[in-house]
């Protein structure tokens, strides 16, 4: 079929496919074409995957190399002999001079988990309000969320810095948790409200008729049903807090013992004369947990985070 009539043909053969009306030579040609396409597609897929993975592979490979390997005139893909020396230096804290990587790991974990819990609780409440009630200013509230989630942290950082300085929350992990949780709210509320809206109202009404208290209804009926939504928003809050850079950079200043991982890696990187082996070891330790986490929640992540764009 000529290319010119392709779109008409598309429709016609969509109908044709239903009745199984496909001519024999056409089918054979299509099969050959499909085989060539299949090979091309898979080859292309492999290239994309390898090109995408290469930087990460290089990071990990460098982390296990000795200085000789790293600065060799002909770089090799894999270490000529594997060493844990870089990781040992990062863990002992000698090269960075500000402490073991575990300390910063703990800081990041504490900030991230607190953010997830706080943001989830607050956004769950708000999303139930938005999804279950019709009240004045509801639409304004939703539009406000859409707008504020677009305000870049860069635009607010000056005022946040001065405010939190006055509150004595600057060189302090609590200050970070408050900012991160608030930053995660608009998106979390948006995502959760869609989950709440899908839960049949009758369930709650039935429970209410049976005499269950509001709290009980919320805890025993609503909560389990929104749990998948909470997982999605938790992932979002987790990423926001774990990756966040500009606020932590500004707030933590010289408070080395409160550094989160990104600030630690930056400090390490910015120190003159740092060796790439330990820096890559530190980056690896910062990156691998979140990659593993992503792979675990892959399904939900891909579904939950892209759903919005799909509705169209």
């Amino acid at each position, binding site marked *: 079929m000529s290319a010119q009539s392709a779109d008409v043909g598309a429709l016609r053969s969509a109908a044709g496919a239903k009745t199984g009306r496909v001519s024999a030579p056409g089918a054979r040609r299509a099969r050959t074409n499909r085989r060539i396409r299949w090979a091309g597609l898979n080859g292309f897929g492999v290239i994309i995957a390898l090109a995408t993975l290469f930087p990460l592979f290089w990071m990990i490979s460098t982390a296990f190399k000795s200085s000789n390997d790293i600065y*060799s005139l002909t770089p090799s893909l894999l270490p000529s002999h594997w060493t844990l020396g870089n990781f040992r230096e990062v863990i002992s804290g000698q090269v960075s001079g500000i402490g073991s990587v575990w300390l910063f790991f703990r800081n990041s974990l504490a900030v991230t988990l607190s953010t997830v819990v706080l943001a989830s609780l607050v956004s769950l409440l708000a999303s139930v309000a938005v999804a279950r009630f019709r009240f004045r200013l509801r639409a304004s509230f939703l539009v406000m969320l859409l707008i504020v989630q677009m305000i870049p942290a860069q635009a607010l950082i000056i005022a946040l810095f001065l405010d939190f300085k006055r509150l004595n929350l600057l060189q302090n992990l609590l200050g970070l948790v408050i900012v991160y949780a608030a*930053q995660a709210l608009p998106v979390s509320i948006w995502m959760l409200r869609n989950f709440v809206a899908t839960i049949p109202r009758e369930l709650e009404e039935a429970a209410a008729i049976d005499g269950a208290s509001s709290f009980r209804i919320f805890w025993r009926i609503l909560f389990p049903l929104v749990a998948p939504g909470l997982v999605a928003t938790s992932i979002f809050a987790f990423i926001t807090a774990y990756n966040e*850079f500009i606020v932590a950079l500004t707030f933590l200043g010289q408070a080395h013992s409160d550094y989160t991982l990104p600030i630690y890696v930056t400090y390490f990187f910015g120190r003159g004369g740092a060796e790439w082996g330990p820096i890559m070891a530190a980056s690896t330790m910062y990156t691998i947990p979140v990659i593993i986490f992503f792979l675990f929640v892959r399904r939900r992540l891909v579904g939950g985070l892209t759903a919005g764009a799909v509705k169209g």
Partner: protein
Amino acid sequence: MAGIQQPPTVLPAGVPAGLPGSGQASDGHPDGSQPGSHPGIRRGRAAAFIRRHKLAPYLMLTPALIGIALVLLWPLLQVVIYSFQNYSLMQITGVAPTQWVGLANFTSTFKDPEFWLSLRNTLLLAIVVVPATLIVGTVVGVVLNRLGKKMAIFVSTAALMAWATPPISAAVLFYWLVNPDGGVVDWVLSKLPHWLVGSTNWAQYNWTTTGAFQAYVVIAVLVVWQSFPFIAVSVLAGLKTIPGELLEAARVDGASSWRVFRKITYPLLKPIFLVLLLLSVIWDFNVFAQTYIVTGFPGNQNEYNLSTYLYDKAFASMPPSYGLGGAIALIFALILLVITIGYVRTSVRQGALT
């Protein structure tokens, strides 16, 4: 608010959403009339009061409103105020009084060649990276849709790993990849034949300090690497909603891939592309961590983008000028607001408020 697609950062924030499989539909209950009126056993006066005055939704919104107001809205207002004042260290410590200076912060910003340079860098980065990300992401999404199951999982897992990499890690990693001393990119380029890579001496080529152009090539590749997976996954999710027979039939009839895309896929996915386009523009305007690391902040002023320029004026310059920083932040926010309005209008038109 999330940074660049930090990426994830960055996420399809608030895209008007229904989660897949949730069978989401805008809730059609004409329930406005009796919010929260469960005919349950009444407990206590407070509960009765809340019910009578329909206060429940407001109470539930309060924590979120407080958080958003104190951490997002109030600082924004303050920045607006600072931008019209001579606010700096002297004013904070009370040594000198805070004065209104009118538009002085704005005029001195507009007179600063560094501002225009950073605006140019920001715009050029967005102009290159937005289409590049969308094209690469769409191609990968279309390919993913046609790959076999195992292969698709392999490719999408690889992409997911790039997306999951924290921006700081990615930036430091790319800095190492292009490092003149031992970086693998220079080594590969120096081994390639001259007809392919030009006659530049690539061995020990310094990408980050030679000039803004070279540094932004690195940043562009880095940002595309981190953000195409999100586009790919979104496009893939959209493609899943198109009946497979439609695409297959067109292909059987001999339509080229490009034609299938242009005549079938694109029109059906247009709303998704619009949202992705707007989000990409916003994200790429906001790039901070990557430019901070790759340009070696505060090293090369001619390599600033708006974010690092703002940060320099507010925190790294001596004395720091919060007024000047505020003015830059306001200009920055206004540019983004224009894009955001486009985003909000698109979302509302797609039924986000139901």
